[in-house]
C-alpha cells in the first residue's frame, strides 16, 4: 500500500461505503459529475451502495433511469462529449451485452476517430463475480471483453482503499473507463484514509511479499490469493500476491519484476479462463520473465461453462483458496 496511507488518520469502511464516498466526494468537487442508472436514487441500487446520495445531491444529479442500458450509456457518452463527467451504473456486468455498441464502437473510438478533437470522460460502474446463486445471466465476469478494446480503460478494485481511489481517478480521467466491482465484496471491510487521495491507473500493488511463487490476482481473486498464501505459508511456501488493479493500462513492469524474483507464477482471474484476462496476464509475465521461470506460468479462471444455479455446481466453477493452494504447491514441487 502507498505510504501516504500511513501518514494520515484512517478508519475501516466496507467496500460499498468506499464506493459511496468516492462518488459523493466527486459529486461535491465537480458540478459536471452526475450518476445515472436503474434504481440509483431512492433505492440506492440493489446493493445499497448508493444509499444517501440522492438525498445530498438531488434527483437532477442522481437520476433513476428507465431500464435502458444502451440508452443510458449512449446518453452518458453524449453528455461526456459535451462537457460533463457522467457515471453510468450498469447493475450487473452481464448487461455489458446490452451496451456493447455504445461502449466499443462509440465511446472507445471517438477520441481516435476524431483525431483527438473529441473525448469522452465517461465512467461506467458495473459488477462481476459468481457464487451469489444468481444464475447464468447475473454471475459472469466479462471484463476481458472491454479490456480487449483499445480506447477503454478498465479498473478492477479488490479493496475498499483501491475502490475509492480508482473510482475517483476514473471520474477525473478524460477517457471512457469501466470499473468492475465484485458484488460479493461490497460488505468486505478495509482500511481507508480519512482524507483525499486517488489511486492512479496503471500502478500494480504488491498485496503480500514473498519469494517462492507469485500469485497475480484481480478483483475477487485477490482475496482468494491472500487466503491461499496463508495456507501455503503453513507449508513453507513464501507467496507474493500482486494485484494489477487496472487491466488497462497494465503495470507490466511490476508483474514481470515479481515473477523474475520468484520464478513461478499463477494468474487468478474470475473471467472465463479461455481467451480471458488471465491469458493476457500470463503471456505478459511469460514473455517478460521467461529466462527466470522455473515452471510454466499457470492460469486459473472461471470454468468454461455458463454459471450454474445449483450451489454445489456453482462453487466448483471458480478458483478457491484450496484449489489455488494445491496448484501453487504443485508448481513449487511440494506435496
Amino acid at each position: 500500500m502507498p505510504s501516504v496511507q500511513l501518514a494520515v488518520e484512517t478508519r475501516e469502511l466496507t467496500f460499498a461505503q468506499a464506493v459511496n464516498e468516492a462518488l459523493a466526494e466527486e459529486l461535491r468537487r465537480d458540478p459536471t459529475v452526475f450518476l445515472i442508472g436503474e434504481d440509483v436514487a431512492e433505492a440506492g441500487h440493489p446493493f445499497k451502495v448508493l444509499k444517501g446520495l440522492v438525498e445530498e445531491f438531488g434527483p437532477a444529479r442522481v437520476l433513476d433511469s428507465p431500464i435502458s442500458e444502451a440508452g443510458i450509456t449512449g446518453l452518458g457518452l453524449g453528455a461526456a462529449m459535451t462537457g460533463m463527467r457522467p457515471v453510468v451504473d450498469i447493475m450487473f456486468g452481464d448487461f455489458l451485452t446490452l451496451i456493447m455498441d455504445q461502449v466499443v464502437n462509440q465511446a472507445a473510438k471517438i477520441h481516435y476517430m476524431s483525431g483527438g478533437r473529441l473525448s469522452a470522460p465517461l465512467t461506467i460502474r458495473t459488477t462481476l463475480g459468481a457464487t451469489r446463486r444468481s444464475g447464468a445471466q447475473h454471475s459472469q465476469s466479462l471484463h476481458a471483453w472491454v479490456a480487449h478494446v483499445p480506447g477503454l480503460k478498465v479498473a478492477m478494485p479488490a479493496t475498499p482503499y483501491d475502490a475509492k481511489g480508482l473510482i475517483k481517478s476514473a471520474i477525473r480521467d478524460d477517457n471512457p473507463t469501466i470499473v468492475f466491482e465484485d458484488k460479493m465484496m461490497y460488505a468486505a471491510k478495509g482500511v481507508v484514509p480519512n482524507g483525499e487521495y486517488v489511486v492512479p491507473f496503471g500502478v500494480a500493488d504488491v498485496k503480500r511479499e514473498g519469494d517462492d511463487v507469485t500469485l497475480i490476482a484481480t478483483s475477487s481473486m485477490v482475496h482468494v490469493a491472500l487466503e491461499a498464501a496463508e495456507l501455503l505459508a503453513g507449508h513453507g511456501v513464501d507467496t507474493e500476491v500482486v494485484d494489477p488493479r487496472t487491466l488497462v493500462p497494465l503495470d507490466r513492469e511490476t508483474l514481470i519484476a515479481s515473477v523474475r524474483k520468484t520464478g513461478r507464477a499463477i494468474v487468478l482471474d474470475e473471467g472465463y479462463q479461455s481467451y480471458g484476462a488471465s491469458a493476457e496476464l500470463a503471456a505478459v509475465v511469460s514473455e517478460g520473465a521467461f529466462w527466470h521461470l522455473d515452471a510454466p506460468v499457470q492460469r486459473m479462471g472461471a470454468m468454461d461453462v455458463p454459471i450454474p444455479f445449483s450451489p454445489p455446481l456453482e462453487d466448483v466453477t471458480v478458483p478457491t483458496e484450496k484449489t489455488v493452494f494445491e496448484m501453487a504447491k504443485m508448481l513449487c514441487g511440494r506435496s
Partner: protein
Amino acid sequence: MATETAAPPVDRALALEMLERMVVIRAFEAQANQLYLSAKMPGLTHLYVGQEAVAVGVCSALRQDDTITSTHRGHGHCIAKGAELRPMYCELLGKEEGYCRGKGGSMHIADHRNGNLGANAIVGGSAGIATGAAFSAARLGTDRVSVCFFGEGALGQGLLYEVMNMASLWKLPVVYVCENNLYNEYTPYEEVTAGSILARAEAFGIPGEEVDGQDAIAVHEAASRAVARARKGEGPTFLLCQTYRYHGHHVGDVDRSYYRPKDEEQRWASERDPIALLSARLGSEAELDEIRARAEAEVAAAVEYALAAPYPSPGEVTAHVYA
C-alpha cells in the same frame, strides 16, 4: 402536429444562402463520386445528393454552438453545419489536414468547432450521443439545442426508442430528424417498417411533424419551430422529412434496378429536385448559374489541395488512442 409556434418568414437573403449551401453540397458530392470512380479515394462513400434540403433546412435554423450528430451519409450535414471543404476532402482522402487527421474518413467525419459531434457508421448509433448532448445542454444551464440526424433505417434500432423515452421524460432540447429517403440500404422501407412512423414519436409524447424534405423552406420552418420549442425548455420534437437518395446506397451501388425502378429515380430528379424547387421559388435562375460556378470553383480548388496534401506519418497511428 407542432404548428402552434409561427416561424418568422424566410427572407430572400437567407433563402439564397441556403440555395448556395445546397449547391455546394451537390458539387462536393459530385467530386467525391469522381474521386471514387478515378480510384483516388480509399474505400467507399455514401452520397447525400437529393437530400440537401434536409441538412440545409435544419442547420440554417441552428446556431454555431448547437450540436448535431450525423450518419454514414453525412457530408451534407457537415457542410450545412459550417464545415470547410478543404479539411473535409482531406479527411475523405485520409490526409493529415483532415478534420480528424485522416483517422476518421467519410463515415466518421466530425467538426467539433461547428458543433458536429460526428458522422456514425452504426445505423442509429448516434441517437444516444445526440440525446446526451441535449442533456448536458440543459444541465449546464445553456440554451444549446441538439439535433440527431438519422435515416429511416435507424427506425429499426432499439437505442433510438430508449433515448426518445428519456428525452421526453426529461424534456431535453433535442430534435430528432428522420430523413426518409425510402430505402434501408437496398430494401424499400415499407417492407421493413410497420405502422406509422410519426405515431412512434407520439407514443412517447414527442410532437411529430411530417415535412416535405425536398422543400428547404418548409424544412427550415419546421426545424425553426422545433428548435424554438427546445430552446424554451419544452422538450424534444420529431421531424419526419420525406426525401430521396439520388445515388445508390454507396458510390459502388450502380446497378439498382433490382430494388428500385429507373423511372422513379428520374421522376424525383426532374420533378422534386430540392435545388430546382428552391431556385424556381426564388426566381433565381440567373443567380443559380453564378452560385454553381462559385461552388464548382471552390470544390475544384479544395479537391486539388487535398490530393496534394500529405498523409499522416506512420508514427501517428498510436496517437489519440487515449486522451
